């Protein structure tokens, strides 16, 4: 069926997918619905020769009948080219052979530090989050990574309570961005170059090269600048090159719906925001 509209979850996946370039070696570990769909999409469209390393079972180039809701399952891995032990993936990260990794964050700050560990103080946690899996070490050593959030948009009430996902200061740094209280990546002696792109449900960001602060690159068609600023705790950095996000193609959306037939991707988004249907211009 040829799609005649798309929704925000699908737009985020298309944007994540576009951060993958042809021949890139790309890995995602846990909590994988959006990255796995994006990685599969990239291999069907603009990056057919990218290498898709999927999950803690080390599935190489999996082609799955449907995306299961958990990342380690035979439904996901049984048709891969072959599997490698997960420590080989970490070895590749340590030795600089992973081109791109995806990391989500319950909180992300303007320097691209992300928190997956705890809301509040770790000695008296308000919410203990699941943890970063391999995000800390990989964020130090791997070449580049894409940060993402499906919850950049927050309600008026959450804004009043300052419950920002895109926050001024994360409660705990799990995944290391460009600048931390302990120093810059260079000062810290980290091998990898850090996050270069951030994809959210409101827009796409890169980092301003001098300040290393997140910079708005494109605004999704479902929102506007005012909303993005209202949902972001720090003042947005942008220049005259900011534009609207290039919409997905019908082909991309059709692929996504086929890859993720169980609609796992939708669980990550505010149900209200999934109701907005964006129609294709032509």
């Amino acid at each position: 069926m040829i799609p005649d509209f798309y929704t925000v979850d699908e737009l985020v996946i298309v944007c994540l997918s576009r951060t993958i370039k042809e021949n890139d070696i790309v890995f995602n570990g846990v909590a994988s619905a959006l990255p796995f769909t994006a990685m599969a999409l990239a291999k069907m469209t603009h990056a057919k020769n990218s290498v898709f390393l999927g999950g803690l079972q080390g599935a190489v180039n999996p082609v799955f009948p449907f995306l299961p809701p958990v990342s380690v399952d035979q439904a996901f891995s049984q048709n891969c080219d072959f599997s490698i032990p997960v420590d080989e993936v970490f070895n590749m990260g340590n030795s600089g052979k992973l081109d791109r990794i995806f990391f989500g964050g319950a909180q992300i700050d303007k320097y691209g530090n992300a928190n997956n560990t705890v809301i509040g103080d770790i000695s008296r946690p308000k919410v203990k989050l699941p943890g970063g899996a391999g995000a800390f070490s990989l964020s130090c050593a791997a070449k580049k990574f894409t940060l993402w959030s499906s919850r950049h948009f927050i309600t008026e009430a959450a804004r009043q309570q300052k419950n920002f996902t895109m926050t001024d200061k994360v409660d705990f740094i799990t995944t290391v961005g460009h600048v931390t209280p302990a120093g810059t990546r260079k000062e810290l002696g980290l091998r990898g170059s850090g996050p270069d792109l951030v994809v959210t449900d409101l827009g796409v960001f890169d980092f301003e090269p001098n300040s290393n602060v997140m910079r708005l690159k494109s605004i999704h068609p479902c929102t506007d600048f005012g909303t993005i600023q209202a949902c972001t705790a720090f003042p947005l950095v942008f220049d005259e090159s900011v534009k609207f996000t290039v919409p997905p193609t019908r082909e991309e959306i059709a692929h996504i719906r086929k890859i993720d037939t169980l609609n796992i991707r939708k669980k990550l988004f505010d149900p209200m925001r999934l109701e907005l249907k964006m129609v294709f211009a032509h």
Partner: protein
Amino acid sequence: MSVCIKENKIMSLVEAISLVADGDKLVMGGVLTAREPNALVRQLIKSKKKNLHSIDGAHSFAVDLLCAGDVLGACENSFAGYEFDLGLALNYRRACEKGTVKIRETDCNILLQQWRATEYGIPFMPMPRLGGSDLLSVHPEFIQMQCPYTGDPVTLVPALKPDVAIIHAQFADVRGNVKIMGPIFKDKLKATIAETVIVSVEEVVSEAKMKELQPTIPYYLTTAIVKVPFGSHPTCCYPNYAYDRKHLKEFVALSKTEETMKEYLGKYIYGVETSDDYLTLIGGEQKTSFLQSWKQGKDQWMEVFK
């Protein structure tokens, strides 16, 4: 790591878990919602083991249940949860927030190097420089230094040695050879470095059959073998059975308070005499054949996840 050679290593769940001491450092087989050693975890709770220190990668139900059953004293894991399917592991969350489980959160790759140091018989491993994360304040034992050869910045992480590994697999023989089908994850490494290795299996096979299968974990590394069909339930153990999403959903719902969790523990752990009784409780033949029905094709497989 201690070599164990016996003619017959078959034990009951109670006997096998009696080899675990309070305060032991624990590793578990499987990863996330795949092939966790959950029958052994249930027995740890039933045997009232206390203050275990988990040093492990990404897990889901096993860690959550250990927290619910008040078995863990410290959790040095990289991840505990149900990903975006069923969300946070609420018992783990509550135990960390109340302070009954000490948060020693770590990273898969760091932990792997610490296990590796034990495997290689060396006291530490150097890693490409780790910095900038608050996880370093949780782990003051990590040391920053310059490489004496190149001057490159590195971080040293000390060897970590588990006292006990609990693993669930598809096959074993009475001598203790173990065959894992599908992804092995770090189960072989865990069996190599742990002092005591307890393995539950779906099926005990003859030594001739094991020779045909070729063991994943050799007999001289294992301490005890326990036969427990559906021993990973409610996580998956392919090709035998898929993930029991409906059971996990019920578990997560009951995890919301300590009171409702007590109901779950009473029903599925304290009130259960045998492994067969457990299978009856989770839904008997109807449930077990549903969890095996993934083999019938894509549509049926998708049903498992609905």
